[in-house]
């Protein structure tokens, strides 16, 4: 099935902004005519300055397809051009242009079945959160194992929502902190490795659909670990972030 061509730019209005961490926030958008999306897809966003200068970036969609509003979560990139504007400047009522949804390769719906293995590096959690929200909205009990790698507890997106989702209905969420270990933390505090993926499961051979999202080096490494562990290469879906100038 081929969805409509995603090239049409449309004006979206910022309905609300929600702080997620000190460096990231969610923009809630009203986008009249938005055709809907599948969990895991992204959109292109375009800004126009008074002198006509335009800048364009891609952002993963955070909201479930079932949600009433379209949401993206943006993390500030140091010295970035667009992300500081979206995280620090934009306020409700502002207009932006968006086009999409984009991407048919890095998507999941409950009809695709499971089990699911979702591995996020930093803000790579955003499209995976859309999948988890979709799963919850559909009251699906598909097994979903989630590994979130973040620098520290303060950098985890959607921390409260993740905590509220688990542990039930076949959902298992694990975290690893690569820089700052929270006080009293007894969990993982290192980069994602083979032992971690082995402990989390699902085991290779269970036919898991694997989705890995994060910065390019993170995705390269985790995808290789999964294939080395015996997961089918074509079941390992990847989405890499920047560097595209922020």
């Amino acid at each position: 099935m081929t969805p409509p061509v995603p090239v049409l730019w449309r004006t979206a209005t910022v309905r609300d902004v929600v702080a997620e961490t000190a460096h990231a926030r969610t923009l809630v958008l009203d986008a009249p005519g938005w055709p809907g999306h599948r969990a895991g897809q992204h959109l292109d966003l375009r800004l126009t300055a008074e002198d006509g200068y335009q800048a364009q970036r891609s952002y993963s969609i955070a909201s479930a397809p079932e949600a009433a509003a379209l949401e993206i979560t943006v993390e500030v990139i140091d010295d970035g051009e667009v992300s500081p504007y979206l995280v620090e400047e934009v306020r409700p009522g502002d207009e932006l242009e968006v086009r999409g949804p984009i991407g048919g390769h890095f998507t999941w719906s409950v009809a695709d079945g499971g089990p699911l293995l979702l591995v996020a590096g930093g803000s790579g959690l955003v499209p995976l959160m859309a999948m988890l929200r979709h799963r919850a909205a559909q009251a699906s009990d598909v097994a979903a194992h989630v590994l979130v790698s973040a620098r520290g507890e303060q950098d985890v997106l959607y921390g409260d929502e993740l905590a509220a989702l688990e542990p039930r209905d076949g959902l298992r969420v694990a975290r690893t902190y690569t820089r700052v270990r929270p006080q009293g933390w007894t969990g993982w505090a290192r980069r994602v490795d083979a032992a971690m993926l082995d402990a989390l499961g699902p085991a290779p051979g269970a036919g898991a659909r694997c989705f890995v999202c994060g910065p390019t080096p993170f995705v390269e490494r985790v995808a290789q670990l999964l294939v080395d562990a015996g997961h089918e290469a074509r079941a390992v879906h990847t989405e890499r972030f920047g560097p595209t100038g922020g």
Partner: protein
Amino acid sequence: MAPLSRGFHGRRREGADPSRLPPGQYLTPDFPVLSAGPTPRTRLDDWSFTIDGLLDAPLSWTWEELLALPSETFTVDIHCVTKWSKLDTAWAGVSVDTLLDGVTTEAEHVVAWSDGDYTTNLPLEDVSDGKAWVVHTYDGEPLEPEHGGPARLLVPHLYFWKSAKWVRGLRLTAENEPGFWESVGYHDYGDPWREQRYWSD
């Protein structure tokens, strides 16, 4: 008509010396990494630099031989077609004049080629008379692979895609032969001061 993004200014040109910033460019303190492909990993033992094409006999230098040639240290501004410019970049390397010393040729153009099958075309006169170098040192350190190390061509008066990363040779040609980007719309010459970004510019 696109809606204006309140408070969005984009990359700023303010404070830039107009005599050093070509039209349409912005200044960056960073050194952005752009690449047409993966970073090649050629061992220095296997590396060589070759000049072939329209000359009596091809010339070739090993890495050791290249380092033994007279090296020049210089500071220039660089301008990328994706609109960033970086001022006062400090390099060291071998002038292309040194490599072409004693060569007689009918050629009017060169094709620079690199590991990873990248190519870019230039007029021979634009890599002559102190206008181009094969550089191996940036800011006093060996040139990083992500920036084109072990050696890249440096032709600072043209857009930076002409300064081929991972350069391995120059082929002297009679005719202009469009390279990797020039064959999909980018300007054959690429003068940043005349904003020659694309074919029709």
